């Protein structure tokens, strides 16, 4: 497996250089890739993972009877388990392969990203986690629509959820297709179909319980694998990071520049805008918010975030070490004086170019696995990287299906007059439909640049879902009108500015210059949404608005004390 023979056009390097803010959100692998030799170790290990998770799905299916079981795993997940599952949702293939690749290419800049991805979690804990748990049932729309007219708010929340889920899913499906070519040496189409079929199986049969356990297992495998890699790298330098950094600086073409901030953050507006999208987007992702309803009470919800923050932070420190490990293992000659992971050995007396890496910078972590653990471990990490995508899409699919069945079908269409059995049936049908649609989208977008799509998902979540959720919990004067207008303004403005911005208008659509100057519109669209909610609530003097304001008190008491909150189902 060391002789990765096919050479791959690495557009990833160009992407990283030009569009880092969005590229780092990105699907695992960008640009054209060529199929590698069949990797049997990886395929066998991935098959073991699939067999194990299908076994869990079978077990979960037997436990899953009520709607509460299906949507929220019966509320019986512990804080520790949920923390692992949340961390698993967050440690996507993009953050493992993408950030390690970013560190490999640019050094320190990768760490700046990791930090941005992490700091949203404490804020979620301090301000929304326990209120969310106390008010919600199955979806975040339960919370956002608590004292408002159900139809408009649920429709808005469901549209926000489905938009977020769809863009996220496309990025993941395309990433899966590219990864399977690189890692398993199998066809693109195979990946898309395997992922689609398995996610339908996990979600329709096992509901949230199976989805959670698939995520937990993946999180444990990924954390163990990454820990092993980091330890093996540091061991070569006697666990002295200074020695590792010295070696890295001596072999990297950017030399000492990899030890300090580079070109990543040039203007503070972009930086703050990106930070806001990351922070508030995390707090608006429907598949993450759903996880707060799987635990018994506010106490466990808080513990979930504590453990999740710990695991995610630890993981990012590991990826940083792995990225530096990649620099020394890929850019310095091995024991026999060869450069097995570069397309061509550098000319005598010159430093290797990092962009020369086989498979593009996203392969940095995978090559490093090969270098520290041999073929078997390389197969293991490849299998885990693919399993990562599978686990994330299962959670996304469940979130999308819940938006359809619980918000659109049960509340908007049937006005609450629906049996639990019918609602679950609709949810399962929605799961199958979402699964099939994402297979087709995966095929349709094979040759498209999807790097911006995860960014788009985050910006929509931050600009539409998060403001209505936060304001509904904190601001008693909010009304249905304010929420609906503000939410839609956020959704529409974020999509419009992103499309007119450099990442889509210039890079994807090929126009010479962008109409909107910033890569990330978060700073503007989030403000538009909040101001919209405020203005159209404060000027709303209707009868309906008055009665909605009166209902805030009861909601407030429940959000603070958990009086009347959903408990765990008993079985």
């Amino acid at each position, binding site marked *: 497996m060391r002789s990765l023979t096919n050479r791959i056009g690495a557009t990833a390097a160009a992407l990283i250089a030009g569009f880092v803010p969005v590229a780092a959100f990105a699907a695992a692998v960008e640009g054209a890739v060529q199929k590698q030799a069949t990797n049997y170790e990886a395929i066998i290990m991935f098959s073991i993972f699939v067999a194990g998770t299908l076994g869990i799905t079978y077990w979960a299916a037997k436990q899953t009877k009520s709607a509460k079981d299906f949507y929220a795993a019966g509320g019986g997940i512990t804080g520790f388990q949920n923390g692992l599952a949340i961390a698993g949702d967050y440690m996507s293939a993009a953050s493992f392969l993408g950030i390690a690749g970013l560190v490999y290419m640019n050094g*320190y800049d990768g*760490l*700046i990203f*990791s*930090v*941005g991805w*992490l*700091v949203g*979690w*404490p*804020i979620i*804990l*301090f*301000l929304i986690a*326990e209120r969310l748990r106390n008010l919600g049932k199955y979806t975040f729309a339960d919370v956002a629509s608590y004292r408002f007219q159900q139809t408009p708010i649920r429709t808005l929340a469901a549209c926000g959820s489905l938009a977020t889920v769809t863009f996220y899913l496309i990025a993941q499906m395309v990433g899966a297709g590219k990864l399977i070519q690189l890692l398993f040496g199998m066809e693109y189409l195979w990946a898309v179909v395997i992922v689609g079929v398995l996610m339908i199986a996990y979600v329709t049969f096992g509901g949230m319980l199976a989805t959670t356990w698939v995520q937990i297992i993946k999180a444990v495998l990924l954390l163990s694998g990454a820990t092993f890699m980091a330890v093996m790298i540091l061991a070569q330098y006697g666990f002295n*990071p*200074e020695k590792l*950094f*010295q070696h890295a*600086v001596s072999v990297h073409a950017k030399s*000492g520049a990899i*030890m*300090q*901030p580079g070109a*990543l*953050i*040039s*203007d*503070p507006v972009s*930086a*703050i805008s990106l*930070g806001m999208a990351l*922070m508030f987007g995390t707090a608006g992702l429907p598949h993450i918010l759903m996880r707060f309803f799987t635990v018994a009470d*506010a*106490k466990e919800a*808080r*513990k979930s*975030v*504590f453990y999740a*923050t*710990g695991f995610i*932070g630890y993981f*990012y*420190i590991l990826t940083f070490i792995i990225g530096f490990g990649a620099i020394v293992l890929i850019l310095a000659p091995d024991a026999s004086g060869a450069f097995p992971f570069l397309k061509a050995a550098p000319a005598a007396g010159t430093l290797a170019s990092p962009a020369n890496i086989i498979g593009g910078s996203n392969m940095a972590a995978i090559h490093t696995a090969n270098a520290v653990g041999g073929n078997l471990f390389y197969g293991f990490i490849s299998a885990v990287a693919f399993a990562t995508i599978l686990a994330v899409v299962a959670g996304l699919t469940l979130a999308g299906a819940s938006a359809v069945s619980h918000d659109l079908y049960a509340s908007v269409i049937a006005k609450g007059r629906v049996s639990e059995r019918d609602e679950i049936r609709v949810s399962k049908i929605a799961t199958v439909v979402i699964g099939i649609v994402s297979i087709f989208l995966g095929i349709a977008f094979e040759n498209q640049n999807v790097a911006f799509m995860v960014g788009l998902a985050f910006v929509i979540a931050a600009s539409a879902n998060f403001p209505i959720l936060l304001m509904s919990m904190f601001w008693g004067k909010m009304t249905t009108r304010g929420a609906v207008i503000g939410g839609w303004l956020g959704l529409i403005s974020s999509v419009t500015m992103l499309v007119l911005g450099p990442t889509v208008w210039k890079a994807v659509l090929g126009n010479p210059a962008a109409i909107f100057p910033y890569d990330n519109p978060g700073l503007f669209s989030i403000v538009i949404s909040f101001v919209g909610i405020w203005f159209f609530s404060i000027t709303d003097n209707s009868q309906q608005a008055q009665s909605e304001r009166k209902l805030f*008190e*009861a909601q407030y*008491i429940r959000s*603070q*004390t*958990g*009086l*009347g909150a959903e408990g765990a189902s008993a079985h």
Partner: protein
Amino acid sequence: MQENAQKILNNPKFQELVARRSSFAWTLSVIMLAIYFGFILLVAFGKGFLGTSIAGGVMTWGIPVGVAVIVSAFVLTGIYVNRANGEFDELNRQILEESK
């Protein structure tokens, strides 16, 4: 339920819980935001400092500062959970008990 809610609202302990928990949560949020945006501003404007060597080696101040931001996020969540799951939950339990 309606009656319980009224009792809770009239309970001074409830006001105390809300006041204490909110100010604690907002204080920690502001600390976290200050740390993060401070770090970002340092990246944007203070590249020189982050690139300065510690003790003459290649290790720069940027590394411990970045790692410290990550660790601070974890520590702050720990501080909050510790107090919320102990002191605040005990107060909350009393309030719910007294509302029955």
